[in-house]
């Protein structure tokens, strides 16, 4: 019950303990070279079916932590458990959505969306069917034959999302997925993500530097502080899912939470 201890360290509202952890981060530290401490003694559990945001100023190691969970980086010490089993590499139960989309420019939308399945050895007709389904799911129906350079930034990220969804992983790891798209697209995207959460029974780990975005989309927000990267606070926004997206942005609870996080983060920003 490491988490509940950390949780009460934050001021005010107590945080519910994690009942069904799907990802556990145990005492993870990451050093670059021998001097730069990117992460120090991170101990976290992520609730199954929830969307948890990792939020913090640049240099707090949030992307590093996400990549360690993804198995793309090795921790210097500590371990990652997924569904109770220690892992030290990428696995089929996790899929990653990249900040810069990471699409193959030589491949069509369909081929890009089917790439994960291809690597996993799924036969061509089946993987294309599944990819088509998720291309439709992210709202890109009719764009299957287009190439990435023919799409806008927002549409490209939808392809990245479709690719991650197509492999049917339980856990989606998203590294600032909306930071490279414009504000309007971003809002639309966040709303789509919320809708997607209702449809797909998945766990989301979401890295962002936008406080509003984190409060809007998350069940839980893990605040990280920089140099060395540590967990500084854990917040459950507890915003009713009933409110429409437009009302939400004027919701008092929402605004208070944003304010509270900003107060916590302010001291790390020059």
């Amino acid at each position, binding site marked *: 019950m490491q988490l509940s201890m950390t949780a009460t360290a934050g001021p005010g509202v107590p945080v519910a303990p994690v009942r069904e952890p799907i990802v556990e981060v145990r005492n993870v530290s990451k050093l670059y070279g021998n001097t730069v401490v990117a992460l120090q003694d991170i101990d976290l559990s992520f609730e199954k079916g929830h969307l948890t945001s990792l939020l913090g100023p640049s240099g707090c190691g949030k992307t590093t932590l996400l990549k360690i969970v993804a198995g793309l980086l090795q921790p210097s010490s500590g371990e990652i458990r997924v569904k109770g089993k220690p892992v030290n590499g990428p696995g089929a139960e996790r899929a990653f959505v990249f*900040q810069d989309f990471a699409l193959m*420019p030589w491949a069509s939308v369909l081929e890009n969306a089917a*790439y994960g399945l291809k690597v*996993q050895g799924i036969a061509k007709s089946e993987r294309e069917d599944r990819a088509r389904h998720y291309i439709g799911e992210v709202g890109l129906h009719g764009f299957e034959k287009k190439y990435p350079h023919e799409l806008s930034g927002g549409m490209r990220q939808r392809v990245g999302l479709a690719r991650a969804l197509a492999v049917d992983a339980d856990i989606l790891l998203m590294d600032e997925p909306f930071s490279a798209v414009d504000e309007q697209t971003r809002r639309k995207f966040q709303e789509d993500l919320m809708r997607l959460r209702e449809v797909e029974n998945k766990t989301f780990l979401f890295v962002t530097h936008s406080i509003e975005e984190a409060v809007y989309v998350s069940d839980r927000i893990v605040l990280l502080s920089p140099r060395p990267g540590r967990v500084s606070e854990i917040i459950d926004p507890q915003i009713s899912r009933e409110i429409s997206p437009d009302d939400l942005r004027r919701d008092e609870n929402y605004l208070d939470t944003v304010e509270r996080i900003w107060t916590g983060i302010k001291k790390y920003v020059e």
Partner: protein
Amino acid sequence: MTLYGHHVPKMASLIVWVILWEIVGRFGLVMLFPPFTEVIAAMGEVVTSRSFAEAIRITVISYLLGLALALVLGIPLGFLMGLSRTADKLLNMWVNTFLSAPLSALVPVFMILFGLGTPTVVVTVFMFAVWIIVLDTRAGVRHVAPSLLEMSRSFGASWSELFKIIFLAALPEILAGIRLGMIRGVKGVVIGQLLVSIIGVGALFSLYQQNFQMAHFWALVLLLFACALSLAELVARLEKRIQYYAGERN
């Protein structure tokens, strides 16, 4: 290009030079230049001669062999340098040295090593073509977006799958290297044959020069220029077909 408000095609300036050449030839102003019309007439003769067919055959063979060698060794070497820092440190200086060195000076050495024949010409083509292919491949491999590789790895990609990603992502640079290598290779085959001078086009050149058949000599020069230019144009067109994604990788 426009002249006095009229649109003039780019190639039009060539006509001016051709007329000038004709005049110089007609009046015998410079001994080396026969009239252009004579050169054109000789061109027909050169093209239909048996020695020309033989020269072209052997030139094409040595060119293709040298180029194939440059591709087969150059691309893997570029990959190695792009992927391994150690290999890069060991080789980079040498590759750059060979790239800018006057390689023609080495042809006599090849003659001693490989004899006065096709092997020397093949090696010359190889030496002219390979280094730019190595360096461009290296640059391409180095510039593959790290996130693309992470993406592939995140799905559990095997080494061969990763390799495919690197290759396709580096393809625009690799093709640019091949195009430049092909153009340099043409220089290689001509210089090699001229210096060896008993085979291929080089033999023809010495034949025409020794017999003072200047019209034939110039006809051959023009033919070679035309070949080299059309080859470069052909590769440039191929390259354009995949260029759309060269600038798309950030």
